[in-house]
């Protein structure tokens, strides 16, 4: 069965408060960072028949199109 990694990030322009917090945290630990963005990953293993539906799953459920963008990568199935 194919496995997909869906990476969901906030749209540019939408305030990424968690990302900013992580940025502060890293600076507090004396690391220099220019920019941090936080996002989610969903790894989906689905029956072959569902392959074509993954985009729809993101659109309808996994992401919130109002504030989020997503990207779908298929992972090489380790069988």
């Amino acid at each position, binding site marked *: 069965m194919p496995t997909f990694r869906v990476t969901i990030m906030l749209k540019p322009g*939408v*305030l990424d*408060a*968690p990302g900013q917090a992580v940025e502060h945290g890293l600076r507090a630990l004396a690391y220099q960072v220019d920019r941090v963005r936080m996002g*989610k990953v969903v790894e989906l293993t689905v029956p072959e028949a569902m392959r074509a539906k993954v985009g729809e799953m993101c659109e309808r*459920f*996994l992401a*919130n199109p*109002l*504030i989020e963008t997503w990207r779908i990568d298929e992972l090489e199935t380790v069988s």
Partner: protein
Amino acid sequence: MNWGVVVFPGSNCDRDCVHVLRAVLGHDVLEVWHADSTLDGVDALVLPGGFSYGDYLRSGAIAATAAVMPAVRRFAASGGPVLGICNGFQILTEAGLLPGTLMRNAGLRFRCVPVWVRVESAQTPFTAGLVPGTVLQMPIAHGDGGYLAPPDEIAQLEATGRVVFRYCDASGRPTEAANPNGSVNGIAGVAGVQGNVVGLMPHPERASEALLGSADGRRLFESVAGWLAAHRRAPRMAEGVA
């Protein structure tokens, strides 16, 4: 009248709402299970607060897929009064029954504090009995309460009186300091296009008895009976249905 209170897995204010509607206001209450497919006999519906499905993925996102939601949509479409409180508000936005979304609080922390909100519109079942400008004190308790919608949507909401509640200070001034979570325009609650679906982050059920510090929230629930009468959706009891 007959209220329905939807119980999702992870709802945790359902019993509080039932207590207020039943014991404080003396109304009839039907607990609606998330797997039910009808809302027969319900005059007005509450989606209570909590952490439905753990609020995993996004607050309210998974509950929006629950089996009862089609019935909730039909009820809303037919003009039935629907109130989403806190997580209930998040569920309604995720289900597309209300515009916008609720982001992580600007301070990034869960906040449990009393706040004041100003009633901005009386054009909803839950504010019909209130005068715009009225200041209500109710507690908030949430981590994802920052209201956000695209600028044009916000303009629309403001222009069409669908911003129902706005965070303000005790005297009714909507200041920055009074905005507890970074909501756009200090928006605490909004209504859907028809006005019968309302969502808000503060908890009216926690402010319905003076003993708990405020009884202001009760007025939201009390408004509904009058509104129903005026809109000729006669309460169930009037039809003699127990």
